Every structure is written in structure tokens, then in C-alpha cells.
């Protein structure tokens, strides 16, 4: 059993798939992640099953689509009886830990996230750098290591009503700009390094989730990292004149305000401010990259790098000014649904490989369980990526699905959207009655001709057959994505 791999799952929050040097952002400062990709396999089309934190993470941990795990929106607790794959790992003898953000239960009003049946020995939780739960482990660490920083930024206990403080911030908040040694991202790496170097049970393989809050807004990073970014090298946001006129009507509201009107929107900013937001975004990514480098160094120093499966990914993307929008919501552009995915496992996963097949976030738990020799848990709907990595793509699904079910901030009427990607085509349905009271609408993109999703072909008379074919395919995919977990223990 000693050759079972360790697993380090590095998860960031709100990081776009195209935000790394190795995924096309030549202006990004991501040498460590680029090296990680060069030493492993990069999945170019990894889609999350929901564009919001909590539903997406529930899909990661349960291996199920949001329509099946039941955590369909932020603020909904993970329903009882849903099984986390980390529990399976712990039961199989893994020493399991989670450091950083988890979000499988409501965290509004500075709520402390309750533990699940998660299998973790180590659980150092902090919903975010501005989250004022007393149990915020980052704050507990900061209080000890940088008492002046802590006191200066958080002189009082913080009012529960101020729970959307960082959502409403137009720029970085003070805690985002502290020196790197006091930063949340540094804390995640420090604690992960301590786990790898000292704390882990040496007789067991380990699973560690190092869960960064960045590059989630508020948009701010330590000056040292902002200085590394050449803002002029970052392209202008991806859009075209009149774009919102061609898109389903809710896109306009998403442009005016974010988070259903509770956070500033794209249209509240000047072009220069948007450009600075973009620069700060990549500064946060540069800091993450720096901290990832330190964690990988710790693996090497501990002599376990070779036998550790390192996975890097993110729970969803960020509009970042593209399509005249900021933050996230019901839009199912690749900006929000496509995330980075790198898997490195020395001697097992081929180095320098890039895989274009669409894969899904629910596949991560299946992959980890397969690598660790565990049987997939009941109800796990993902497919292990290992066969794909080894070139055996027969039987691997050819599509990716994403479901938004009024998952973000509340709207009237409720908004529900579904995305299907297959081949070059992408269909997005804005559901209407009887799903919700919204007006039924749609988007259809050919990603080969239009990777930026600027030209909505949904109403194009030249693409009627394609639109209808994609709808049939979506209904097939939805049927395949149903949860048929309970065993048929008898023929009838």
C-alpha cells in the first residue's frame, strides 16, 4: 500500500481557464504553474458544473451534478447524506487535510462553516480574508504572526450586517494589499508546507486540499506582485459594440450591476478602472503562483514530489470585464465555466501533454479515487481522467454540462441557465416556464470560429438545424446526468 500516491489538490477561487501563461495569457506571471503543466498534463477544456462557489464545490466533493447533490445555490447547505470523496480517502487510510476555503454550507453573516462528514484530520478553515467568523483560522494565524496587521485592519469585531463588505468594495480592501508574508494566500501555503514537512502522518499517504481565496474579488494584491504585472500587456476586455443587444436580456442587467444588483457592475467603472482590476487580478495570480512554487518546493524537500499527484484547478471563472461584465452570475460563457486544470504525477501522467477533450469538474474526485486505488463512492458521476491521460479516450463522454439554478444572488423572476459544450459547439439555455418565470432565451456559439463567444447564432436562420440538434443532445446529456445511485437490488 506504500506506493499509493499522495494527493495535493490546489484549488483557487474564481480563476479563469485562460489566466495562466501556459493557457494563453502571455502577460501572466505564472512560472511555477507553467512548469507544473510542462511536467504533467494540461486539460484545455475543463468545465465546472456550476459557475458559483458553493454549488461548484459540492460537485467537486460529491462527484455529482448540482441537480443531484441538491446544493443548487450559494446559501444552501449540502443536503444530509451526500458523501464526500475525502471521507472515502480517509476510510482507505489517507491522512486528509483541508486548508483555506471550503464553502459547502452557508457562510453569510460571518457564519462558521459546520464540519461535514469529511474525513479530514486537519481542517484549517477560513471562508475568506475579510470573513469575520471567530473560527477564521487565517485570522487566528494572523493575530499571532502579524498582530499589528491584524489590529490595524480589524480593530473591532465587525458587524454581521457588513457581511457583503468585500462584494461591495470597488477596489482591493486593506487585507488584500498586506505584505505577502501576512497574506491569506501565504497563510494557505505556510500551513500546507507545515502539513507536508511536519504534521502529516508519515506512515500514511496524504490528501491535502490547499484552497486559496484569490483571485476572487475584491481585486487587490500586495504591491510587490502588482509591480510584476505589465498592465499594458493585458489586452482590452473581449467585447464588441452592441454586444448586449444580441444576447439574452439578462446579460444587460449583469453588465449594469453584478450579483443581482448588490455589487458594483462593469458599467460602474471607467475603462481605466477595469484595466486596473485586470492588472490586480493577475497580480493575485502571480502571488498564488509564488506560493504554489513554495509548496512544490516543500514536496521536493520532503522527498515526496515524485509520488504525489498534484492537481491545480479552480471552482469557476470571472467575467473580468469581458462581454461588458464583471464577477459572476447566470452567464455560462467560458469566462465563468472553463477553469484551469493541471495534473502532474511523475512517471504516471505524461509530461507536457495537452488534452482538448471536454472534461468536467466532477471528474476530479473520480480521478483521485482511481489514483489512490479506492473504489468510486456510491453516486459518483464523474469519470476518472486517467484513461484519457493514457490515450484511451474511447468511452469518455464527449460533452460538458453546466447548470445555474438561481445559484447566485436572488432575482425576480428567478434565473436558471444550462450549458452544453460538445465539439466546437456550445448551447446555453435561459430557461422559462415551467422551470421559472423568466423569458425563455438562448445562446449558440461556434467556438472554432468564435472562441470569444461574441456572435450569438441562436436566432440565425442558417443555424436552425444546429440549434435543434444541440437541444436534442442537451436532453440526452441531461438524461445521462440523472442520479441513478440506488442499486437495483432485484430485477423487479
Amino acid at each position, binding site marked *: 500500500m506504500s506506493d499509493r500516491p499522495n494527493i495535493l489538490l490546489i484549488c483557487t477561487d474564481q480563476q479563469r481557464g485562460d489566466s495562466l501563461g501556459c493557457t494563453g495569457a502571455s502577460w501572466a506571471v505564472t512560472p511555477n504553474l507553467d512548469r507544473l503543466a510542462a511536467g504533467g498534463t494540461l486539460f484545455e477544456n475543463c468545465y465546472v458544473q456550476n459557475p458559483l*462557489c*458553493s454549488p461548484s464545490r459540492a460537485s467537486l466533493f460529491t462527484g455529482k451534478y448540482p*441537480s*443531484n447533490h*441538491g*446544493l*443548487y*445555490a*450559494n*446559501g*444552501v*447547505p449540502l*443536503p*444530509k*447524506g451526500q458523501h464526500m470523496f475525502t471521507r472515502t480517502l480517509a476510510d482507505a487510510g489517507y491522512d486528509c487535510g483541508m486548508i483555506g476555503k471550503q464553502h459547502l454550507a*452557508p*457562510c*453569510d*453573516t460571518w*457564519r462558521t462553516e459546520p464540519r461535514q462528514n469529511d474525513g479530514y484530520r486537519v481542517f484549517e478553515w477560513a471562508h475568506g480574508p475579510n470573513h469575520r467568523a471567530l473560527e477564521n483560522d487565517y485570522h487566528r494565524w494572523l493575530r499571532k504572526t502579524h498582530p499589528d496587521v491584524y489590529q490595524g485592519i480589524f480593530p473591532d469585531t465587525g458587524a454581521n450586517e457588513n*457581511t*457583503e463588505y468585500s462584494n461591495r468594495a470597488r477596489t482591493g480592501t486593506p487585507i488584500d494589499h498586506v505584505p505577502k508574508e501576512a497574506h491569506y494566500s501565504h497563510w494557505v501555503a505556510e500551513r500546507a508546507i507545515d502539513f507536508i514537512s511536519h504534521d502529516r502522518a508519515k506512515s500514511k499517504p496524504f490528501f491535502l486540499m490547499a484552497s486559496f481565496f484569490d483571485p476572487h474579488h475584491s481585486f487587490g494584491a500586495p504591491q510587490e506582485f502588482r509591480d510584476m504585472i505589465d498592465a499594458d500587456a493585458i489586452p482590452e476586455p473581449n467585447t464588441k459594440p452592441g454586444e448586449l443587444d444580441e444576447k439574452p436580456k439578462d446579460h444587460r442587467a449583469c453588465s449594469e450591476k453584478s450579483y443581482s444588483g448588490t455589487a458594483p457592475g462593469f458599467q460602474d467603472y471607467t475603462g481605466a478602472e477595469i484595466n486596473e482590476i485586470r492588472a490586480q487580478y493577475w497580480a493575485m495570480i502571480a502571488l498564488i503562483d509564488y506560493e504554489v512554487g513554495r509548496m512544490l518546493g516543500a514536496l521536493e524537500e520532503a522527498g515526496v514530489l515524485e509520488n504525489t499527484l498534484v492537481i491545480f484547478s479552480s471552482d469557476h471563472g470571472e467575467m473580468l470585464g469581458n462581454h461588458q461584465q464583471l464577477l459572476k452570475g447566470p452567464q455560462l460563457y467560458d469566462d465563468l465555466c472553463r477553469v484551469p486544470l493541471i495534473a502532474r504525477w511523475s512517471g504516471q501522467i505524461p509530461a507536457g501533454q495537452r488534452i482538448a477533450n471536454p472534461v468536467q469538474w466532477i471528474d476530479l474526485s473520480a480521478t483521485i479515487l482511481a489514483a489512490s486505488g479506492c473504489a468510486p463512492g456510491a453516486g459518483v458521476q464523474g469519470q476518472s481522467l486517467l484513461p484519457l491521460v493514457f490515450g484511451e479516450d474511447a468511452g469518455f463522454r464527449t460533452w460538458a454540462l453546466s447548470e445555474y*439554478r438561481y445559484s447566485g*444572488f*436572488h432575482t425576480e423572476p428567478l434565473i*436558471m441557465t*444550462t450549458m452544453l459544450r460538445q465539439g466546437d459547439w456550445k448551447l446555453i*439555455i435561459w*430557461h*422559462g*416556464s*415551467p*422551470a*421559472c418565470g423568466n423569458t*425563455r432565451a438562448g445562446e449558440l456559439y461556434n467556438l472554432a470560429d468564435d472562441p470569444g463567444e461574441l456572435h450569438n447564432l441562436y436566432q440565425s436562420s442558417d443555424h436552425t438545424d444546429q*440549434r*435543434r440538434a444541440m*437541444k*436534442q443532445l*442537451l*436532453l*440526452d446529456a*441531461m*438524461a*445521462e446526468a*440523472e*442520479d*441513478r*445511485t*440506488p*442499486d*437495483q*437490488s*432485484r*430485477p*423487479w
Partner: protein
Amino acid sequence: MTPPARPNILMVVFDSLGETALQEHIDVLPTLRALQSNSLHFSQAFTCSPESSPARASLFTGLDVAAHNLWTDGVALPGRETPLPEVFAQNGYDSWLVGRRHLAGVSNWTTEHARPNEYHHFDWAHGPLHRSRQNAYLSWLEHTAPSIYTEVFPRQADPDDTEIPQAHHEAMANVPDHLSFNAWVGTKVCGRVELGGPFFGVAGFVVGHSMGGGPALVEALDPKALRQADAALATVLSGVPQNTVIVVTAGRGCVGSVAAQPLNNAAIHVPLLLCAPHLAQQSIGGLVSTMDVVPTLCDLAQVRRPQRLQGQCLTSVTPRGWALSRLRHPGHPHQTALNTKHWKLVLTHGEPRETRLYDLSSDPKEAKNLAADPAHQDRLEEMLDHMMDARVALEDRTEPRIAKF
């Protein structure tokens, strides 16, 4: 002021009886005919599945198959669900069942168990030809008419040989009316009713041709068994107190002798009658689902609804107007059907994919597939859109949202 007495609940559930089949036979079914003329009659009620167990799970939980996950026959109702009899039992009702339940697999003569708090009295019998040792009807028959029992079943049951010889089948079909399965259901139910209330009772009649002896993806109706059930129901109704809410429905539909598509409306369009002292007779043609029975009975009895619920009250909410049904049997290509007032879409998933579109107003028997007709392409797409939205409407979002994030 004394609070009004809580109504008794009697659920009359046929194993397989289509609404169309019932109306075809209603002239020889005096009890059901009288009951229908005195009921809220939902003439367009649908089940979520043409299979017995998934459909019954919806009837008894108020959830679509997308939420309760009993996706095909042979799957047991997941433990997290609270079936309706348990809800009433928790509220002080005496709960009992006579006849069929089928919320768990019963092949190989397997005995089905009630949950600890589901039924206080459990006179379970999957059907007259189901040879579980615990088949309460067969115990009664063996005790009441040993010679007939021996004639029908000359040998011990073998769980590995569940083929019913034609001779047994015919012998059981020919037992005298007063010894028939449905007569036994009626007798037992009368006995339970006499014990007083408030009660929540289920009369599980079996009128399918297989008599509970074997699987049938589509079940044919046994008219003789239906007449016996009607006669048994007459005795039951004569003893039921005035203050009783009566529901008549079926676990699923049935087809005639001709083999039909499993998602033909014959198999998923079922009777639904709701009879209560203060409800005026009315026929309602809007499409409803059998999962709507749970909230309706809870509201009528002023019993708190279960938290996990997708059905809507039949007496206070406008009918949905559509019905989604799924066939997920492992031995059959998966299919999904959407019924609306005038149109029906049936998709066969996977390869070979098949699309069927029917105009129900001119073609109620679903004989002419219009899916390839150029004149109906817009209609077809509209039905595809509707099916997507209907699917999403039925996803499990029963966990309440308790915070913004």
C-alpha cells in the same frame, strides 16, 4: 368550539389501470361509476414512470423520480424519504395497508417490509400469484380454502424458478369471486375501517394480468379482476364513515392485449378521483401528476406537509398543464415523454436516437409520428424547449436556501 374531527384517508390504489381503460369499462363498474360521479375527477392525471415502483414512490412521497431516485423497479425507496403513511402515523393516525405496496424489489418471491413507522398494520400481498411466504392473501386463502390453494399451488414455491405455469395462472383466475385477491382486500379493509379512526388506509388492488407473478414492462388489464375490485370496493364504501377523504388512482396505467410503446399514454395516464364530504363533483381536464396527491391529502387533513415535496395541492392550485414521464428500465432504451394538453413528445435517448411527436387532439392513440414532418418542426422545437424546462422544474431543490451565500 370543538375542532372539526380529522378526516380519515382511504387511498384506493390499483396496480395498473389506465384512465382510458377505466372509462371503457366503467359501465360494468357500478361502484367506481358512482364514486366518479361524486368526486373531483382529474381526467388528465399522469405518473412519472410506466414502471410500478417509480410511479408509486412518487404517489407516496410527493416527489418526482428525479428527487426520490427510485428510478426503476427493483430499487428500494431511499431511506431519506418519508412516505405518506408515515407522515400520517406521526400525526396520530392509525395507518394500514392491505394488498400491494411495491416500494422495494419483490422478484424471486422476496418479501417486502414496511418501514418501522410506516404502517401500524401491514397486510401485505404483492398479488395473488406472488409466492412470498409472507403473502397475507395466500396465507388467508390457504387457511380459508385449503383445497383451492392446493389446486392452484400444488408445489412449494421456488425462488429460483418463478415462471408461473399457465395452469396455475388459470386456476387462480378461476377461484370463486368471494375468494379472489380483491375480495380479500375488501374484506380486510372493512375490518380495519371498523376499528375506527382517524385512519390512513391503503387498499392495494391488483387488476393486472400478471397478478403480481412476474414482471411486465407494460401490463395488460384483467377485466374480471377489475370487476371483483369494484364489488369489493362497494362493501368497503358502505362501511366507511362520512368524514373520509377517498382517493382512487393507479400505480401505473395498462394496455390492452396489443403490445404498445411503454410510454404510450395508456401506460402513464391514470385515473385520479378525489372524494371528500365538502368537495363538489367536478371534472378537471388540466394535466396533473400523481405526486400531487401527497400535498393534497396533507392539506385536506391539515397535516403538516413533508419538507421534501414537489407536488402541488390539487384543490387549491391550477393544474400544471404538463407531465413529464421517464422510462429508465435497464433492459430498455431510455425514453422521456412530455405530455401537454394537445401535444406529446417522446425522446429515445442514446443510439439509435428516436424522436416522436404526436398531435393528441387528432391522434389520441399516438399512431402518427409527426417528428419528421416539415410542417411541424417549429412545434417540435417548442416541445423540446418545454421538455428542457420541465426537466429543470423537477430537479431536486427541496433543500431550503437559508442564506445569501
